C-alpha cells in the first residue's frame, strides 16, 4: 500500500537532487533548472499532504507555486541573458561583482 510517506520520500529525494545541482554545478542555466526541480519537489509534498488529508487547499497552494515559478523563470532567464551579454560566460563563479 502506497502511503503518504512514500510520496514524501520521493519529494525529499527530488529536493536533495535539486540542492546538489545548485551547490555543485557552475552553469547558471543548470543552477536555474535545479531551482525549478526543488519547487517541483515541494509541490509534490503539498499535493500528497492534501490527498491524504482529504482537502484540496494544497492543490491551490501548488497552483500558486506554479504561477510564481513561471514569473521567476521569466525574470531569471532575462537576468541570465543579460549576464551572458556582459560577461560572455555563464559561469556563476565569474559573476562576482554587483555591477557591469
Amino acid at each position, binding site marked *: 500500500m*502506497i502511503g503518504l510517506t512514500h510520496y*514524501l520520500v520521493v519529494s525529499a*529525494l527530488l529536493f536533495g537532487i535539486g540542492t546538489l545541482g545548485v551547490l555543485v554545478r557552475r552553469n547558471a542555466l543548470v543552477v536555474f533548472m535545479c531551482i525549478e526541480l526543488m519547487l*517541483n519537489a515541494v509541490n509534490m509534498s503539498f499535493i500528497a499532504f492534501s*490527498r*491524504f*488529508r482529504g482537502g484540496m*487547499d494544497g492543490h491551490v497552494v501548488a497552483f500558486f507555486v506554479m*504561477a510564481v515559478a513561471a514569473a521567476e523563470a521569466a525574470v531569471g532567464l532575462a537576468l541570465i541573458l543579460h549576464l551572458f551579454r556582459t560577461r560572455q560566460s555563464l559561469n556563476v563563479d565569474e559573476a562576482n561583482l554587483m555591477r*557591469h
Partner: protein
Amino acid sequence: MEAFLFYLFSTAAVLSALAVVLPPHPKARAPIHSAVAMVLCFFFVAALYAMLSAHLLAVLQVLVYAGAIMVLFTFVIMLLNLQQDNVDKPEPPGFFKMLGGLMALTTTWGLITKFTADEFLAPISAQLVEKLADPLHYGNLQDIGRLLFSKYLLPFELTSVLLLTAMIGAVIVAKRDPKTTWIPEAVKQLTYRERHGKRVEKGAP
C-alpha cells in the same frame, strides 16, 4: 498495480532528475542535455500527481512546466552563443564541490529520516483520509476553481499583479543596451546601408 506504477514513475523521476545534475556521459555537459532530462522528469512527476488524483495539476504540470517554462529555457539556450563557454568542464571535483555534495547529502538524509519517523505523522494521522468517498469530485477543475474564487480570491488576484510585474521586469532587464553589452560579430545584424555602404536610392529594388 498501484505500487508497481508508483515505483516505476518515482524511480524514473529520480533518475531523470539525477541526469539533470550529473551528466550521464562526459560529452553531455551542455545545458540542452539537462533541459531534455528536465522535461522527462516533469512528465514523470506529472504522472505521480495523477496517481495522487490531482488531475488538474498533472495537466498544468505538463502544460506550464514542460510546455512553457522548459521551452523558454530552450529558447534562451539557442539565443546564447554557448560554444566557446567551457563552464562545467570535466575536472576532478575540488574542495568546495565536495562540500556542496556533502551538504546536499545531509539535507536529503535529514529530510528522509524526518519523514519516515513515526512521530512526524502522529499529530495528523487522526485526520488522514486514505480512501476518498468520491474520487470523481477530487482534484478536478470545478472544485479547485470554486476554492480559487472564494477562499483564495485575494492571492489569486495578486498572482495576476505578480505576473504583470514579472513580464515588465523581464522586458526591461533583457533589453539590449548597445553601450554596455557585447554583440558577437556573427550575430550582429547590419542594415542595408551598412552592408552596401551607400544610400538606398528612391525606386531601387
